């Protein structure tokens, strides 16, 4: 059992990029209980990447708390591709005007894996924004959870808060439980949430197949495309390349990434 604890203070006008990854080296069961606190001071920019691609014997419970002051920007990407049980508890507290939070995630799991995304964005100040975009592809008996909460206090007027969760279930026994949630006490805000659960579009599959792309690859290509638009906001080219490569590998699709 591992219990790492991180405290990250990002001072005024400063910028940081963080990549977090937990990797067990053997197949012994490992349980990681991780706590991270991030304090983003005025005009700080935080760009945080969590790569969760551990062995099937490893479980991870991640608790991350982010507090944001005026005009700070925080981006957090979570890539969940492996592990027995992964639970992400992300809590964002916006405590200053014109701050922005972006939470994105790609989950691609199979077998009996379980990935849980529990997010909270608490808007306490006016003129702020938050964006959440989580995509999931679930095969075999895997289980996914998205429980996203956005709270807007009475004082937090002129907020833009968006939340979206799209999922593809590959097999009959794969499960996704999705619960987008908005609690709004202000009266002048723009908030939206949406969730979709589906299979791949037959028309799109036929289109690809009519161009000679075999069914298996056509499916893989569509899944790749579905997940890949989350990648647009990834700012570190090496991470982008690596994750794109991992997605392609996981879906069994062979693409030229650099074209």
């Amino acid at each position, binding site marked *: 059992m591992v219990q790492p604890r991180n405290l990250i203070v990002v001072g005024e006008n400063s910028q940081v990029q963080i990549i977090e990854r937990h990797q067990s080296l053997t197949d012994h069961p490992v349980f990681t209980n991780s706590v991270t606190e991030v304090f983003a001071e005025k005009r700080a920019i935080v760009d945080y990447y969590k790569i969760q691609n551990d062995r099937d014997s490893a479980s991870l419970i991640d608790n991350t708390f982010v507090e944001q002051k005026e005009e700070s920007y925080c981006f957090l990407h979570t890539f969940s591709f492996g592990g027995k049980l992964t639970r992400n508890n992300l809590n964002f507290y916006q405590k200053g005007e014109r701050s922005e939070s972006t939470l994105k995630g790609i989950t691609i799991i199979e077998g009996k894996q379980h990935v849980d995304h529990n997010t909270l964005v608490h808007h306490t100040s006016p003129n702020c924004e938050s964006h959440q975009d989580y995509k999931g592809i679930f095969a075999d008996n895997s289980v996914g959870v998205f429980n996203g909460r956005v709270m807007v206090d009475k004082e937090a007027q002129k907020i833009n808060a968006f939340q979206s969760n799209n999922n593809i279930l590959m097999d009959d026994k794969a499960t996704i439980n999705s619960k987008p949630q908005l609690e709004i006490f202000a009266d002048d805000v723009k908030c939206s949430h949406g969730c979709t659960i589906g299979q791949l579009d037959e028309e799109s599959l036929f289109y690809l197949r009519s161009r000679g792309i075999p*069914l298996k690859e056509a499916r893989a290509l569509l899944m790749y495309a579905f997940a890949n638009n989350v990648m647009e906001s990834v700012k570190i080219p090496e991470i982008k390349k690596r994750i794109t490569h991992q997605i392609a590998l996981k879906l069994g699709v062979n693409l030229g990434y650099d074209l």
Partner: protein
Amino acid sequence: MLKIKNLQANIEDKEILKGINLEINPGEVHAIMGPNGSGKSTLSSVIAGKEEYTMTGGEIMFEGEDLSELDPEERAHKGIFLSFQYPIEIPGVSVTNFMKASINAHRKAQGLEDMPAKDMLKMIRDKSELLEIDRKFLSRSLNQGFSGGEKKRNEIFQMAMLNPKLAILDETDSGLDIDALKVVANGVNKLRSEDNAVLLITHYQRLLDYIVPDFVHVMVDGKIVKSGTKELAYELEERGYDWVKQEKSV
């Protein structure tokens, strides 16, 4: 090349094709015209192998081989290409990557290695020039946010890349302004040869001014009721479809 005999097909137990006979030889251009709902698009989808449709009778032979049991991708590998009436938008896959996947799938089916990136880029450049396609366009997501004309131009670009033996153009002229129509028709004409054939499906004679057919067939209610040369198309433009229908019922 393509021989269709007494072809019947259903969608969800609804009979749409009621006995089609059609023979297309290499080097020929055929046009199928007909009113809405006569089964024109169904015919093109059935030839391309869309699984929603069930063949209930007759046969489709392509170069002496029965197509009915083949998957859409296998038909594509044999040289059949369908230009879609409504090309599908695929966000996240660029035109270039899509073409790459498609070309290499064709090559794999022929037992060839992937095309070297350099050759691929050159081919993409050459063919996009033929259809007056802007380079920027090629890195955009497939059909996403394309105008009607761009979508159709992109279909013909794909045709140019794949160089099929039989190209079925399903209402490629719909949604095109006259300039775009000329570019598309010009592209198709440049791709014509002794060895390949084109099947045009259209409502209007307009397209046939630019791509001149050897044969024109009129389809009404799931059957080809009249066949002729390109003069038939002019007659249809002038007199509408009613006279063919009446002639048929007499």
